[in-house]
C-alpha cells in the first residue's frame, strides 16, 4: 500500500473521529511520525498499527477537547445542495447508529479494510467483528426502512 493511500485512509478515519480537518491532518501526520518512531522503517508500513496509533492519538485529543458531534459536521458539507434523497437518508440513518457501528462501517466499507486489519486496529476477535458488522448493517438497514 502506498503512502498516499495510507494517508487518505488514516486521515478519513481520524476525520470521522475528530470532525475537524486541521486537527485530522495534524493527527494523521503525527501518527506517521509515531509509527516510524515505534516500528522504524522496514520499507512498508503496516496500516493496522497506524490505525491503532491514530486511534490512541484521537483519544488523547478527546481528553483535551470535547468533540463536536458528527451530525453537526454532516449538515455543513459544502456543495451538498444537489445531494440525492437516498444519500441524505443514509447519512441521517448513520447518525442514529451507535458510534462503534459507524466506526466499523467506515473501516469496512469506506476504507475497505480486510477483517484482519480491523480486528487488529480495534483489538477485537474476528468472530466479534463479523457479529458486530452484521448487527451494524442490520441496524442501518432498519433505520433506512423506518
Amino acid at each position, binding site marked *: 500500500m502506498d503512502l*498516499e493511500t495510507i494517508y487518505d485512509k488514516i486521515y478519513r478515519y481520524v476525520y470521522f473521529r475528530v470532525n475537524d480537518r486541521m486537527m485530522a*491532518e495534524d493527527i494523521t501526520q503525527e501518527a506517521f*511520525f*509515531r509509527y*516510524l518512531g515505534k516500528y522504524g522503517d522496514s*520499507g512498508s508500513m503496516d496500516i493496522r498499527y497506524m490505525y491503532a496509533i491514530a486511534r490512541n492519538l484521537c483519544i488523547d485529543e478527546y481528553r483535551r477537547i470535547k468533540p463536536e458531534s458528527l451530525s453537526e459536521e*454532516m449538515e455543513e458539507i459544502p456543495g451538498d445542495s444537489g445531494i440525492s434523497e*437516498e444519500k441524505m437518508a443514509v447519512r441521517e440513518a448513520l447518525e442514529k447508529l451507535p458510534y462503534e457501528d459507524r466506526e466499523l462501517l467506515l473501516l469496512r466499507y469506506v476504507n475497505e479494510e480486510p477483517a484482519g486489519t480491523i480486528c487488529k486496529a480495534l483489538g477485537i476477535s474476528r468472530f466479534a467483528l463479523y457479529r458486530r458488522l452484521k448487527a451494524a448493517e442490520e441496524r442501518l438497514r432498519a433505520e433506512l426502512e423506518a
Partner: protein
Amino acid sequence: MDKNEFKNLIKDAYYAPEPEKKKEFISRFRPRKVSTFRMLLQQIPYIRPYVWILAAAIVGIAIAGSVTGGEGTDKLVALIMPFTAAVGILENGRSRRYNMSELEMATRFSLRSVVIARMTIMGFLSVILTAIVSPVIAESFGMQAVITAETVLMPYLMTMIISLHIERSPLGRENGASSIVAAGAVMLLFLLIWESESGNVLYSSFISGGCGVAAVIILGALTLTEQWLTVRNVEAFA
C-alpha cells in the same frame, strides 16, 4: 437494495474534506531504513565533548603511568572510572530530562530508542576503555590483565548501579548532578579501602581469590537490570 449499492451509499455518506497538507507532507516524508549501527553513529555527535575528553584522559593516564612506571596507576584509573559512568548517566539524563533537545531526531526515533542508543554508546566506550587500559597497565606492572580489569570495572559498575537507581527516583530526576555525587562516593569508598592497610590486604585477597570475577559478573548483571529498569521508565515518545 443489493449489497454493492448498500456499500456505495455508505461510502458516499462518510464525507471528509480533502486534506490540504497531504502532498506537502508526503513529499517531505521520505522514510528511509536506518540501521541500528547507523542510528548509533548518528547519536555520537550529540554526546557532549567532556565525555570523550574524560575517556581520552583515562587512556592518557594509563599510558603515561605505564611509561613512567608510576606506582598505583591501575588504582588511579579505577578511581577515575566512576566519573566515566557518571558522565554517561548525565548524558542519558540529559536526553530524558529535556525530552531530547535534538528535535530533528524526535521525528525519526522514539525517546526510548535514543536513550538506549546512548546507553549502548557509553557501554561500548567503557568496554573499549577497559580493553585498552587493563592490558597496558597489566603489561607494564607485571599484573594479570583480568585482575586489572576487575579493579578498573568494579568502581565503574558500582557507580552505574547507584547512579541509575538514583536517576529513577524523584531526587535524581530533579538533580542532574546526582550521578557525580555517586561517583565521588564510590571513589571515596575505594580510596579508603586501598589507603587502609587492612582494607588493602582484604581487597587483594578478595580479588586474587577469584571472587573478583564473580563480583564483576554480579555487578554487571545488576547494571544491566538497572539499565533495563531505566529504559522501561522512559516514555516511548518525548
